[in-house]
């Protein structure tokens, strides 16, 4: 008695589709993991665990997705694993994020070098945000996810996600302004009384 051809074909198809998913979203999962945990070593572990979990549950996820993209599902797995990572090890994200990796490799233009301090400051402020706000910003800006995708990844409604993003940015603006300190009035060259 052999394994039915249909079963074998289904398994092959499933594996092929998982391979596609893996290749398409390795960078997304790694980016998310990196910005969540703040260092490359743990980001690699988190990415690996995410795909192992995803492989185990891929068939069901695909069945229940009704054809919708699976990226939010993958990120949700990473999100849950990251939460366990902090809970189990009683630690918070490292601050600042490995600046050698985050700020040098993806940004190489002169303009970005000039903005390096600004970028470093904003990353530090992102780390000060509450978890849900920080995650929403990572999903939006690092992964380019839209509101609907973020909502699925976080298990929220689209409306609640829109509000979350808005508040995250407002709070970040306040944190950045506070970090910059009070702005000095512009110097008035030669404007003084003679």
């Amino acid at each position, binding site marked *: 008695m052999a394994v039915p051809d249909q079963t074998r074909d289904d398994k092959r198809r499933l594996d092929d589709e998982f391979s596609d998913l893996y290749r398409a979203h*390795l960078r997304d999962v790694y980016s998310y993991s990196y910005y969540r945990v703040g260092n490359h070593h743990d980001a690699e572990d988190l990415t*690996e665990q995410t795909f*192992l979990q995803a492989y185990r549950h891929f*068939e069901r996820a695909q069945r229940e997705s009704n054809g919708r993209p699976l990226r939010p599902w993958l990120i949700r797995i990473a999100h849950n694993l990251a939460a366990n990572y902090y809970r189990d090890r009683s630690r918070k994200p490292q601050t600042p994020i490995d600046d050698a990796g985050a700020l040098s490799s*993806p940004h190489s233009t002169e303009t*970005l070098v000039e*903005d390096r301090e600004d970028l470093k400051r904003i990353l530090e402020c992102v780390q000060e945000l509450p978890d849900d706000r920080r995650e929403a910003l990572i999903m939006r*800006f690092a992964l380019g996810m839209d509101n609907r995708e973020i909502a699925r990844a976080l298990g929220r409604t689209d409306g609640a996600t829109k509000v979350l993003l808005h508040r995250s940015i407002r709070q970040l603006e306040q944190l950045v302004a506070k970090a910059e300190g009070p702005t000095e009035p512009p110097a008035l060259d030669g404007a003084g009384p003679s």
Partner: protein
Amino acid sequence: MAADVESLLRLALAPIDPPAELEARVELTLTSLVELAAEELEAWELSAMKDPRNWPRQALRPAAAVVVGSAAAVGLVAVRTRGKRHRRRALSGGVFELAGRTLHDVGTEARKLVEESRRR
């Protein structure tokens, strides 16, 4: 700067390319899991097969798991498959194909056990 926060966020939170070795590492981990499952279940087979009364029931369990086709079944299934692993590796183009071949071999062997137990 507040007005530029969104633009700065796009720059600061740029996507990070994973290390080149990460992809190979994940694939290796998946491969190792498949092999580990084979070894664990070989041990399971030896203990389960000692008692003939368990043969039909024990042999049906992995067979059913293969029919389901779930990747989670990797953790439950492997009977008499270890001896074929070099051949599987040689024939497989990647980890997922290797996992598929392993499950296929396991299913075949499990069904052989079912048939053997029925004949007794």
